């Protein structure tokens, strides 16, 4: 296969952090090249340097035979290099077709007036080409699309020209199973068309499903360069990524004696996204919730916690109804909720670490006067206990890594010692090392007698951690699996809507 692009001796610094160290890597036509590594390993940075979004400090890029010191986004476009970045860069108030084609010169009559008819046609043609059918009309504004559909639009934007090299940065994080399938079909098509594909991913399964070669990054260094996928295993990849031997990724699961019921939901509904939800979670029990994105899992949890209006049904805590209570009162009764969207719903992003940790505690405190310093020792204990890596507690919480932010978010509830923990995607977007710590923490809490609900889109994780797994499909419970008879295929079958 022909090499289309080579990066040579790339070094990149962000302030004092050496993000990429002497990276040499080749990309070939008609090949799916996966890049894996922990958070902060430098995967996205590498992708962005290739796409001209970041500039490298040293090194060069060799495209076909031409040598470039660095690329700009415009040059990358000319060389037909495109990247689907992790953050969506769409304009919500513009239509799908405008989002895809508005930066093309040909989209304008005489360079001035937008030719809507043309771009709509072009967009429809593009969708047909990739056999995308379940999208709304191309004149729909992007703000009316689901997150997954927006991601598809973003991918289409990158494919609006025929590319030589196409980089996907974690494209599947926001997609549901069906859409992932669609994306992989698309990638296979592109491969047929001799496009060089770079797939940056967290999900190692995907590497084996679609990758040809895999490169492993650890702390900015390439630890394994272009290993053929068929010659490696998932476990091996994890060990290379973490740079150490992981004995048991999920930890050992002890079978605990299940205690008395803690939280009960009876025929719960919000009148919109879910209906007839009944389940019980007991002391010492970890209850998993599986389902596609948009199946209604988050909505159920938000309703139980009280941030979403409940239409009918009952929620009982220790046999007492709590669904008429305010959020604050529910927290006092012992409910806690760690939301999935860390930056959107979880953290006060402009405040320091300690203020974030104290938020729940201060709100519950009686009286008018608080002094945040009074919690300082408690905060320090928490930092030690959870091994949160930070410079100091007055540091702004946005400057922590994803894993450490998640720990701060957890600590805000841990200090309240609630009876039930509801974790919504507790390991999303965090590195492998922190994941194992969070699994250990969840298991420790169960051992202490807490009831735990864990919503997750990673089935492996649910199967490894949970005692029982509830499957939600289009807002209803389709099945409950016991830990002993749960398997990925069985759960998947129940997750996917019947056609």
């Amino acid at each position, binding site marked *: 296969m022909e090499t289309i692009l080579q990066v040579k001796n790339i070094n990149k610094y962000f302030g004092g952090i050496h993000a990429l160290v002497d990276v040499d890597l080749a990309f070939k036509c008609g090949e799916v090249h996966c890049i894996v590594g922990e958070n902060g390993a430098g995967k996205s940075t590498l992708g962005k340097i290739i796409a001209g979004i970041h500039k490298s400090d040293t090194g060069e890029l060799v495209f076909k035979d031409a040598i470039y010191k660095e690329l700009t986004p415009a040059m990358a476009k000319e060389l037909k290099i495109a990247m689907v970045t992790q953050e969506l860069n769409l304009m919500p108030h513009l239509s799908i077709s405008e989002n895809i084609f508005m930066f093309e010169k040909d989209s304008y009559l005489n360079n001035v007036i937008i030719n809507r008819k043309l771009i709509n046609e072009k967009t429809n043609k593009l969708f047909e080409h990739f056999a995308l059918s379940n999208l709304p009309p191309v004149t729909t504004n992007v703000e009316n699309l689901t997150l997954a559909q927006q991601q598809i639009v973003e991918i289409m934007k990158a494919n609006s020209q025929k590319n030589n090299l196409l980089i996907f940065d974690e494209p599947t994080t926001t997609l549901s199973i069906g859409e992932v399938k669609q994306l992989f079909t698309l990638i296979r098509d592109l491969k047929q068309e001799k496009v060089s594909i770079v797939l940056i991913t967290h999900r190692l399964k995907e590497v084996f499903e679609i990758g040809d070669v895999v490169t492993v990054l650890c702390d900015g260094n390439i630890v394994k360069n272009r290993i053929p996928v068929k010659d490696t295993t998932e476990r091996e990849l994890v060990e290379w990524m973490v740079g150490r031997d992981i004995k048991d990724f999920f930890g050992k699961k002890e079978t605990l004696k299940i205690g008395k019921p803690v939280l009960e939901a009876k025929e719960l509904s919000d009148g919109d996204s879910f209906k007839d939800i009944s389940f019980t979670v007991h002391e010492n029990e970890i209850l998993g919730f599986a389902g596609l994105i948009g199946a209604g899992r988050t909505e159920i949890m938000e309703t139980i916690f009280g941030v979403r209006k409940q239409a009918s049904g009952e929620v009982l805590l220790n046999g007492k109804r709590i669904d008429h209570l305010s959020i604050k009162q529910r927290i006092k009764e012992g409910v806690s909720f760690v939301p999935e969207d860390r930056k959107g719903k979880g953290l006060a992003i402009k*405040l320091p670490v300690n203020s974030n940790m104290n938020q729940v505690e201060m*709100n519950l405190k009686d009286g008018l006067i608080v002094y945040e310093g009074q919690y300082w020792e408690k905060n320090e204990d928490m930092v030690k206990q959870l091994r949160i890596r930070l410079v100091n507690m007055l540091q702004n919480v946005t*400057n922590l890594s994803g894993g450490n932010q998640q720990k701060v978010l957890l600590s805000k509830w841990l200090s309240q010692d609630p009876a039930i923990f509801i974790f919504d995607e507790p390991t999303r977007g965090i590195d492998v090392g922190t994941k194992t710590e969070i699994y250990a923490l969840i298991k420790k809490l169960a051992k202490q007698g807490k009831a735990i609900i864990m919503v997750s889109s990673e089935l492996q994780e649910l199967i490894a951690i949970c005692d029982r797994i509830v499957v939600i499909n289009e807002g209803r419970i389709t099945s409950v699996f016991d830990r002993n008879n749960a398997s990925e295929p069985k759960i998947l079958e129940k997750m996917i809507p019947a056609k």
Partner: protein
Amino acid sequence: MKNGKNNTLKDIIRNNSIEFGVGVGLIILFIVFSVASPYFLKTNNLYNILYQVSAIGILAVAQTMVILTGGIDLSIGSIFTLSGWLMCFLIKEIGFIEGMAIGLLVGLLCGAINGFLIAVTRLEPFIITLGTMSIFHGIVYIISNSKAVSNLPIILETIDDYQLLGIPSYVIILLIIFILGQLFLFYTKTGRMIYAIGSNELAARFSGIPVHLYKMVPYVLVGLLSFVAVFIQSAHLMAIDANAGTNLNLESITAVVIGGTSLLGGRGSLIGTAIGVLLIGVLGNGLNMMGVSSYWQRVVVGVILIAAVASQKITISARGKFEEKK
């Protein structure tokens, strides 16, 4: 914060770099004007500066709290005028206590109406207060017929002239309000919740904080402090006219923004606002002494505002990079 363990002086400066930045600007202005004019540093002139900024300073305290929640109060000047005009009119017609009480009540009521409308309709504070700005000022015109109230009773002059240990009453009131305000923001639950809500309202809700209840508080405080501010000003001028507070809407916001409070909420302090207020006062006073016309002064204030916020933005991104580096 409990000190001594992790935070060094460097940390303190870094966490308050914006306040320090504006503070340095203020000191530079002070030095320039005291060199340029021998009268600048005279006690009388300094008190004069403080008087000139007393109304806007007190309003800026309330405005800071509103802005910290991520809101804004455009009706602050109208509340100032409405409660002030009624107070003066009633002091003259009925009596001192009655006038004061009704003026205060009207101020609080106006603030409560703003807070209530924002909590109930969930509309942008900008829109609600843009509406009430017009409503409250309209009411002033209706009841006053656009007439001023003057020749207020002598008791107001007595209060204005009162000095404690040689410090004029308005300076004392100004100082007390800033100190109480800062203590309120840092050491009361409501104060901390104001920061939490402004920083991320959704996250606050997910922590169980009754967001809309807390969001009302700063608007009510606007009502209270508008009354205090207008009282000081009318006592000094011994009169009030129907347009007394028109400029104060935007001037109070200018002072808050120069002081480093983010218009998006969650970041800022009354220390910054105090410096911002002083900066505006010193600038006006100093330029006056140097014979710069008031028309030009407006231009200068605009330039300072943009320059201050631009430099703050640079500071914040530099600080972010610095922490990333660590």
